[in-house]
């Protein structure tokens, strides 16, 4: 089924809340498509080495690595280094070496490129765009970062473009603090209060940062627009990953709604760890008779009842989600006995994803 969703697609973006098996699903989709003859790269920015783990790689760097998966096509994997990607982009856009070095050595920049939630998401999109431009792969699969707000990464390119366009940059575009001082009476007041509230040193760093960034705004804006265009392109597909848990389902429904609002190409939902519905009836009498052990039969029954109750709840939660999805498809991957964390496990998911 995933095969149909991704036919003629060049980019697959797997999104969803934390803990629903997004990384595993991304890897399984990539492996499955590679097994069907495509040249696929799966990308993650998750520093927890989950993808490397599930692909049996000791580690992943900013470079793509070929996964020894014995497939008809090719499977490559990489872990994005957001900081390095950001540096590369600055390098690309800077009008001269002096500007580049000023930005790269600025402490505000270092913080921005390193730690801030949001810039990571943007960098993932950037790298995706870059790899897509290079055209070395038939399909790129992106495992989006586990943000609390699963939508951050969609907004990231827009946010960065807005930031670069913002008055703050223009205000600080003049070298040093001079820019602030020529703003007129009102801002003089603001400035003096700001200095009291923050301390001048921080302001100067900010000022230098914005000033050196100002020269690069055009390039950044163009790029952010191109990234946005790629996300909305019919060659892209968003796959929503969820678990049947109430909170995950709730978030998936909301996320689906937002994707449609944003005009992004939504392909379908993958629901992981779905418990199989158990047949009706009371097996306790037969169990006791067959096992000849009352206590054991009772323990089996207890387990079965628990399983049944949870399976029924899974069904209800997923039925709610189906209603909200309308005609868009949903694939259910059953709760497997062992958790999936290697190529073998990914292959077991294949029959459900592609079956």
């Amino acid at each position, binding site marked *: 089924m995933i095969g149909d969703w991704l036919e003629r697609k060049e980019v697959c973006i797997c999104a969803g*809340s*934390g*803990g*629903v098996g997004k990384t*595993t699903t991304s890897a399984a989709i990539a492996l499955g498509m590679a097994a069907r003859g495509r040249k696929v790269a799966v990308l993650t920015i998750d*520093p*927890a*080495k*989950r993808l490397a*783990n599930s692909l049996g790689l000791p580690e992943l760097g900013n470079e793509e690595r070929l996964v020894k998966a014995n497939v008809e096509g090719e499977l490559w994997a990489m872990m994005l280094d957001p900081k390095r990607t950001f540096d590369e982009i600055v390098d690309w856009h800077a009008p001269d070496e002096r500007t580049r070095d000023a930005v790269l050595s600025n*402490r*505000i920049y270092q*913080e*921005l490129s390193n*730690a*801030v*939630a949001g*810039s990571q998401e943007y960098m993932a999109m950037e790298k995706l765009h870059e790899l897509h431009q290079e055209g070395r792969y038939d399909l790129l699969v992106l495992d989006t970062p*586990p943000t*609390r*707000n699963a939508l951050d990464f969609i907004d990231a390119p827009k946010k960065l473009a807005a930031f670069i366009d*913002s*008055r*703050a*940059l223009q*205000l600080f575009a003049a070298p040093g603090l001079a820019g602030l001082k020529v*703003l007129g009476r*009102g801002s003089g007041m*603001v*400035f003096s*209060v*700001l200095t*009291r*509230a*923050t*301390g*001048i*040193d*921080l302001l100067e*760093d900010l000022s230098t940062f914005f000033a050196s960034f100002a020269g690069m705004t055009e390039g950044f804006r163009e790029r952010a627009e191109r990234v946005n265009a790629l996300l909305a392109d019919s060659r892209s597909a968003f796959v929503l990953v969820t678990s049947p848990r109430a*909170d995950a389902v709730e978030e998936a429904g909301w996320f689906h709604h937002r994707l449609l609002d944003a005009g992004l190409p939504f392909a379908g939902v993958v629901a992981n760890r779905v418990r199989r519905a*158990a*047949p009706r*009836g*009371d*097996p306790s009498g*037969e*169990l006791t008779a*067959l096992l000849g052990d009352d206590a*054991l039969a009772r*323990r*089996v029954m*207890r*387990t079965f009842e628990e*399983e049944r109750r*949870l399976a029924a709840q899974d069904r209800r939660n997923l039925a709610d989600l189906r209603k909200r999805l309308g005609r868009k498809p949903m694939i259910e991957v059953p709760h497997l*006995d*062992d*958790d999936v*964390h290697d190529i073998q496990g990914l292959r077991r998911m294949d029959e459900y994803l592609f079956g």
Partner: protein
Amino acid sequence: MAPLLDKRLILVTGKGGAGKTTVAAALGLAAARRGKRVVLCEVAEQKRLGALFAVDTEHAETELAPGLFAVSVDPEQAKQEWLRYQLKSRTLAGVLGGSRLFQYLTAAAPGLSELVTMGKVWDLAQLERRTGGSVFDLAIVDAPATGHGLAMLRAPSTFAAVARVGPVGRQAEKIDRSLRDPAHTGVLTAALPEEMPVNETVEFERALRRELGMAIDAIVVNALHPERFKRPDVERLEGLSAGSTVTRAAVGAAISEHRRARGEHAQVRRLRRAAGAPVVTLPRIFEPELDRDDLERLSAELERRL
């Protein structure tokens, strides 16, 4: 447990979906039972505590249970509070807060919302609240998922270095110092008994030590399946070939459960070997949604094991 609950601030970290909110709430209940006045802080608009206790947490300091309060930290509001405190003047804070220049600047300044969030959390743990709110014995933070959680913990030290002098720098340094003081701040990490969450927990412990010199006080492994069947039991179950469909399904469920439990217990052993912090486990609750009774049960269990 006592030394942990005697701290003023406990950060509950962990991978998304690993049960951070549950652990934070269970710990909060345990502390409140001991007569402490406890505040649970949610950051980044989670609003999960309210759902768990079936109360509306929109407002500041909602009482969830006797002695247990919830606060949802909103960075924008925290920023305004911080300004008022810093400038000692509502008028000046209003001028600045209302200025477009300030809006642009703070929206653009990287890491600022993490810093003010940490500032607010820190303030909740103070004996003398600078924002004038009520005083708590203990603040427990339901922190964002691992990666972002670390960024949040790092924000004060980063700002202390960037701002060097001035009020931001001084504040950030003070917060950073309390965070790194094990007598003041504790870290509890929620995990699941599965391959990747275990790896991530071990990684997080290393990163926390490497980047901030902080240690995890305890790792709480959530939702561990009980080992209900012994090997001979399983052999008998596997040997059954007769029976109706539903009987075979019941037997199949028991065998699956056994395999899952065995795998999970192996992961807990692996975590115990790899992690420096003590590892405690909480049982799997076989309910679709946790209710208050389940939470009380987990809380008692946690108190006993920590």
